[in-house]
Each structure stands twice: as structure tokens, then as C-alpha cells.
């Protein structure tokens, strides 16, 4: 079985299209995707990751409130026993035009392993997952 990802759009965010694209792209790349869809709370991400023994949680946010929604996520993962789980965030994660390096730093400080800005392609996410999960290029593909 391939590596398991929990995927969803955090908070009160109803942007569904990007979520479907990522779901498709990750599956196509050989990952086992537990897609929670839109309007997902931190608790729902964590509970799904526990039951499915996920290798990574991939959080999307597109409506600008990502910073508020993501606060304390890493701490809650630690509390729930998901110590060291790979945590990604991406999208329009903050309000307005702020320099990405600053935004990235704030989310890295919050405990996210990788932060992706607007306009990131699914391939960039897939490449990062393969590298962080130490998959050979074709390993995820050949799984399942």
C-alpha cells in the first residue's frame, strides 16, 4: 500500500476545486489519499490521521484566514500522539500581499514542515512528499 495522506481545506473555507485537483493529482501519483474535503477542523484532520495511520497531513487554505486556523495544529498533533507527522500547508494562506519568505517563516515556526505559496503546482507538492517520505521516484507509483 502507498503512503497515506490526509487532505483537506481548513477552517470555514469552502473552496472545493483546488482540493479536488490535489486529490486527483496525489492519487495519480500513487498516494493513498484520505480526502476530508472542505471546512475541515484541526480535530478532524487529526482524528482521520490517527485512524488511517497517515504519513502526512496536507492542509489547504484559500480564503486568507489560514494563519488563524492553523495555530496550535502541531501542538495538537503532538498531544494526540502523532509525534513528528509530516505537516504541509499551502494556498492563499494569509491576507493581502505579504512577502512569501516572511509568511513561510511564520508557518514553519508554527511547526509546519513545508509551506507552499499561491500558484504552486501539484507536482511541486508531490516532489516534496516523495523527498520527505524518502520514496524513490517510482515507488509511490508502483504501490497499490
Amino acid at each position, binding site marked *: 500500500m502507498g503512503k497515506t495522506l490526509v487532505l483537506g481545506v481548513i477552517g*470555514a473555507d469552502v473552496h472545493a476545486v483546488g482540493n479536488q485537483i490535489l486529490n486527483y493529482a496525489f492519487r495519480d501519483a500513487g498516494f493513498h489519499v484520505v480526502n476530508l474535503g472542505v471546512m475541515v477542523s484541526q480535530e478532524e484532520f487529526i482524528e482521520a490521521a490517527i*485512524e488511517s495511520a497517515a504519513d502526512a497531513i496536507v492542509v489547504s487554505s484559500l480564503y486568507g484566514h489560514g494563519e488563524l486556523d492553523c495555530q496550535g495544529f502541531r501542538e495538537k498533533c503532538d498531544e494526540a500522539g502523532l509525534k513528528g507527522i509530516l505537516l504541509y500547508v499551502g494556498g492563499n494562506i494569509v491576507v493581502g500581499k505579504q512577502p512569501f519568505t516572511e509568511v513561510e517563516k511564520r508557518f514553519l515556526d508554527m511547526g509546519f514542515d513545508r509551506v507552499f505559496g499561491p500558484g504552486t503546482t501539484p507536482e511541486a507538492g508531490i516532489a516534496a512528499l516523495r523527498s520527505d517520505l524518502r520514496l524513490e521516484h517510482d515507488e509511490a507509483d508502483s504501490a497499490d
Partner: protein
Amino acid sequence: MKPILLIDFGSTYTKVTAVDPETPRILGRAQAFTTAATDISEGLGHALGKLEGACGKLDFSVKLACSSAAGGLNMVVCGLVPSLTSKAARLAAFTAGAKVIKTYAYQLTNADLDEITRSKPDILLLTGGTDGGNSEVILGNARALAKAGGNFPVVVAGNRSAQEECAGILGRDGRAVYRAPNVMPEMNRLDIAPVQQILREVFLRNIIRAKGLSRASAILDDILMPTPSAVLDALTLLSEGTKKTKGLGELVAVDLGGATTDVYSIAKGHPSNPNVLLRGLPEPYAKRTVEGDIGMRYNARGILEAAGAERLAEQAGSPPEAVGEAVDRLRDNPARLPQTPEEESLDRALATCAMGVALGRHAGSLTRVYTAVGPVDEQTGKDLTRVGKLVVTGGALVYSDALGDIVRDAIAMQEPVSLTPRRLACAADRGYILSAMGLFLRVDREAAMQLLSQYLGKDEFDAAV
């Protein structure tokens, strides 16, 4: 064709029904006190004596039974996350007709294990992890349970990858272990029909013997299932109908007993408004819940606590202090029937509040979330607002002459966010037709449906509101 005998071993009464499957019609019904403490076939004999007294000698071709005698089917369920596999396991146990003594989540502690051993469950249902997901917790729990006391059978229905190992660990010392497909094979997908079937079989094999019902099974073809499970099957048939006989459509049912309150819903429960977002674990189409803390006598105090003394007093038309004392008197004298007008209105108030609380817990609810694009409503559980039919069965409600008022007031006490039915027409199952037909439908679905529509058909429903 020879008549068929249908038996319901209740905690108080053993009820027998003779059916002529050909016409089809009910030839007769009788009941006698259940004798679970001595030999259950004694009480059955008395009931059959009465039945033959009324209908003459009958030569039965098939004898089928369901039972809730000797406490029914008591289960402990264990899962991983409370809102996921633990909840799925609980729903599976309920739909199999069990009472759930307690639901556990995550790793079982030594204190949990002591508690489980002391609670002497008839069956323990062990779940946890989606297929290919977490197996550490279910394996750890299997190891812990293997070491704990008690020789209760265990049904393992968790992560497929850990099933075999769990069964091996648990079965080492001769414990009966059964395997069923995962109750939640992937996130937010329930698969409870197979485990339900296995729970029935385990009930049949182990529980019947343990509860001194085996002597009865010698004269029977089968003790098929726990009574609530038969009731759920009959309600499902009544709702869906057969190819020849139209069903009633979506419905709910309430069984208000002395110790517990059961609620059934045969309904999809999808959002009635297309803009509502569905959250959490999907719930079964035929769903049963048991409220173990509310009942008309033993748990009258629980009704007061769940509904609030003020509300109960308001319904009863007397001051809260007086209601509190009266409730405790009922709890201490569970056999007491109302004698005075005050006692009658208290019973009515208790029934109203019990039904209101139980319906509220069974149905789903809405939460409004404000988003950048405006408010969005999220639904958890089943939307039963459009369900229009209620069947009341068992215990306190079937003979009430105030049923319409009780139902109307129970609906009126719901919170606006609750997705309980808004308007219900009611019918009462006075002759215990549901449990009987839940058994009979295994022989002949069409005939069972015809009898159900005769006793609980469209015309039997009085508009309550």
C-alpha cells in the same frame, strides 16, 4: 399449510403469536410471565396453554423466537477515535439489538480492563483503525484483553491488516473469537451489516446457553436474534414494503420501557436543504439507538436530569420539588401504576420528556458556520425533519390515551437546530406485532408485510399534530 409459532421472550412477559402463513392472518396471541430465573420453557408452556385455550390445538410447522429475557444482549465496544471507529462500533452494536454497557476509545487502561471484566458483557466488539491504517492500538487492546479476566466472546471488526493477529492473541486461551469485516474500512464509511449478522450468530451460539434459554431452544427451531433486532427488521420491511405491497415510506419508532428508551429510524436522513454540508460519520439507513439513562421507572430520575426538573414540572403541572420526590418514589417502586390524577400527569410528563430527549439524541443537528461567502449550515447525524410517521411500541406508550399530546409536546421541546421530525402521525403496536413479524419475515416476507400493513398500515396512523 400448518401454522407458525412466533415467540418473544421479554424481560417480563413471554409473548406468543400463532400465524396462518397462507391467508395470511394472526390466529391468536397470548402471554405469560417469563421464567428466566428457573426454566424459561415453563413460562413459554403457560403462554402456549393460553394460546391453545383460545385457538384450540395447533400443530406448528415452524417455531421461531427472539429474546430480550435475562437482560437481553449486553455489549462493551472498543474503538480508536471516539467520533470514528468507537462510534461506528456503537452503531453496529445498537443495530444488532444490543444494549451498550460502555464505549471505550484509544488504548485500554488497567482501570478500563477491570471495569470491563466486572461489567460481564455478553460480547465485546473490538474495532480500531481503517483498513491499512492504525493497527498498534487494536493489537495492544487485544493483548490487554487476552490477559484480563472474563471469558466473554470477542468479535474483532477492525483494521483488516491486524484482524488475524488480534484473533490469534485473543483466542490463545480458548476464548471464543469471531472475525468480521472492519466497521469503518475507510474514513467516514460505515460497513455494519456483516458485523450485525455475526453478532446475531454469536448471540445464538453463546448467549442463549449462558442465559438458561437452551432448554427452550430444544423445543424451538431457533432463537434467532435479540428482540430489538427483530423489531428493526420489521420496521424496515414496513417502511420499504415488498414488490407486491407498498411500504409506508420513511418512519421513526420509539420504545419507551421501564429502564431504557429505544429509538429507531428507517430513513436516509440526507440534508433536506441542498446547501447544507454533511459532516462526520454517515449513519445507517436503519438506525437504532438506546438511551440507557432514561426509562419510565428504574431511570425516571434520568429523565428528570436529562430534560431538567423545570421542564418536567411544567409538563406535569406541579412544582419542581414535588416532581423530584415523586420521581424517586417511582424509581423505588417500579411496578407502580398511576392511581391518582397527579400520578397520571406525572407519567405523561415523563413519557413526553423521555420521548423528547431520546428523539433529540437520535436525530442529527445543524450548526451554522460563518464563512467568507456567507453563512453555511453543517449537518451532523440524520435529518429526520421530513419523516412523518411514528410507531410506538412496548411498555408505557402503547396504551396511553394521551399519545397525541405526548408526541406533540415531545416535538415542541426540541431545540431549533435539532433535526427531529416536525410533525408525526402515530400508530401503536399494541399486539407486539413488530417483534413477531421481524421473525416471520424470515419465512415469508410478503405475508409478513401484509400482516404488518393490516395492523400498522396507513389507516392506523392518527395525525398527532
